């Protein structure tokens, strides 16, 4: 369904020659990356290689040591609600608010600051989309792991961001739930055409979701960018499966 979708020429997000790290500890080196509207870019790589760091750079949560981040044509240095993070952590909904209040909070401080009249409708719609319309009044600690991730998706998609930054969002749920969530995400992305930078260490997940697959090696260099392939495209599958930086990952999986 997303295969025939046309990808615009101008990138939504551009990372230009980014080097980044923590204190004296370098993580990313000369990373160049362009993400175009409504494309899903999956980032694969061994644990600790800097995938989360890449997302923090893309969301301006972390300032690069060198290089620049250009979002919708402008240099950016601070996080904003047009580039939303979704985490692996099932604690990401704020526990002192019900699910519904969490979404309202996001709309109120984010995209619908000056349109309180449209909050209610938007909340109902985004809960509907993830199938949680009956859980609106529950507190996050009352949700199962899978429901919590659905709730996080509802909060994020409810804000209709230009770019989603997802950090192994389905990494801590059981296999059947993961599969459900992956297909839910495919539907959401198809309906919203949201550009997505999706970090995972699961090759099959990347092949299922991604239009493009990036491989980050353990030294923080991008070593594969399977540009202009479609999801499930044989050459993308082959390229990724045969990529030396992913072999260990693939066969180590329990």
């Amino acid at each position, binding site marked *: 369904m997303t295969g025939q979708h046309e990808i615009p020429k101008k990138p939504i997000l551009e990372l230009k020659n980014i080097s980044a790290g923590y204190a004296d500890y370098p993580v990313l080196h000369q990373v160049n990356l362009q993400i175009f509207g409504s494309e899903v870019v999956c980032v694969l790589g061994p644990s600790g290689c800097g995938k989360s760091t890449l997302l923090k750079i893309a*969301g301006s*949560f972390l300032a690069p040591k060198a290089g620049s981040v250009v979002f919708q044509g402008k240099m950016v240095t*601070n*996080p*904003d*609600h047009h*580039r*939303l*993070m979704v*985490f692996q*952590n099932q*604690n*990401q909904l*704020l*526990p*002192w608010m019900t699910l519904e209040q969490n979404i309202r*909070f*996001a709309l109120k*401080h*984010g995209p619908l600051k000056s349109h309180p009249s449209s909050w209610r409708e938007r909340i109902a719609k985004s809960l509907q989309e993830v199938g949680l319309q009956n859980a609106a009044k529950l*507190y*996050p*600690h*009352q949700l199962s792991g899978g429901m919590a991730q659905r709730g996080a998706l509802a909060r994020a998609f409810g804000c209709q961001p230009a770019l989603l930054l997802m950090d192994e969002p389905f990494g801590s749920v059981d296999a059947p739930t993961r599969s459900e969530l992956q297909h839910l995400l495919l539907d959401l992305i198809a309906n919203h055409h949201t550009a997505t930078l999706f970090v995972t260490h699961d090759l099959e997940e990347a092949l299922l979701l991604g239009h493009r697959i990036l491989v980050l090696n353990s030294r923080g260099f991008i070593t594969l960018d399977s540009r202009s392939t479609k999801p499930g495209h044989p050459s993308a599958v082959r390229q990724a499966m045969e990529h030396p930086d992913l072999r260990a990952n693939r066969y180590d999986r329990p």
Partner: protein
Amino acid sequence: MKKAGIDPKILGVVLVLLILPAWEAIRIGGSISPLLMPPLVSIGSALLQGLIQGTLLVQIGLSLMYILTGAGIALVLAFFTLWISNLSPAVHHAVGILGALFHPLPGIVLLPIIILWAGIGPSAVLVVIVHSVFWPVLTNLQAGYRSIPETWRMTGQNYELAGWKFLVFIALPATFPYLLAGLRIAWARGWRALISAEMLFGAIAGAGGLGWYIHSRRVFMDSPGLFAGILVIMLIGSLVESMMFSLIERRTIQKWGMSL
């Protein structure tokens, strides 16, 4: 779980029902002077009279006002200090060191110095309470602030909450369990320190409050009044501890699944 199924409320009633006759039995059996152990009836009537005539009620109000004012000042100071210490690591460390030094110091120990600096009277009592409340609240707030999960911080940043908005909408609710824990300690310390300070200042300047009330009952050899005052101090102390704080916890952090 089920076998130790004694309801603590029933146990409390039973305990009181045991203590009251025991008191009377010892008093009558040992023919102890009513000055040392007044009859329950006279303690009860002293309590009622104090409440009805207002002499005791006024002192209760005064003590509560002291502690609320002191706690309010201490809370504002603690939040301000937290904010300041977030601005610079040097301030943060300095505050940490001061906390380590002053936190363990009982408020009452400061009294001689406070008397020198602030004189005797209400302001000195307030200083003692502020000291007793400020440090436990501040150390707990700082611990809570440090333990805010990165996902909540980043969520706050994502919705462009910075400065005071971050403090109000993310940091305050996120540290609420710690704040409550700090307030519990602060209450226990503050209430004790307040009564002691009132007794001391009552002796010198008639500053008022429940401590002063007890002190004055002793001076007038009014034993029933003395015991009535002690009862009130016990009751308020445990009511706040076991009812007010428990109620707030049930309505907030327990409902949110955030208990520490």
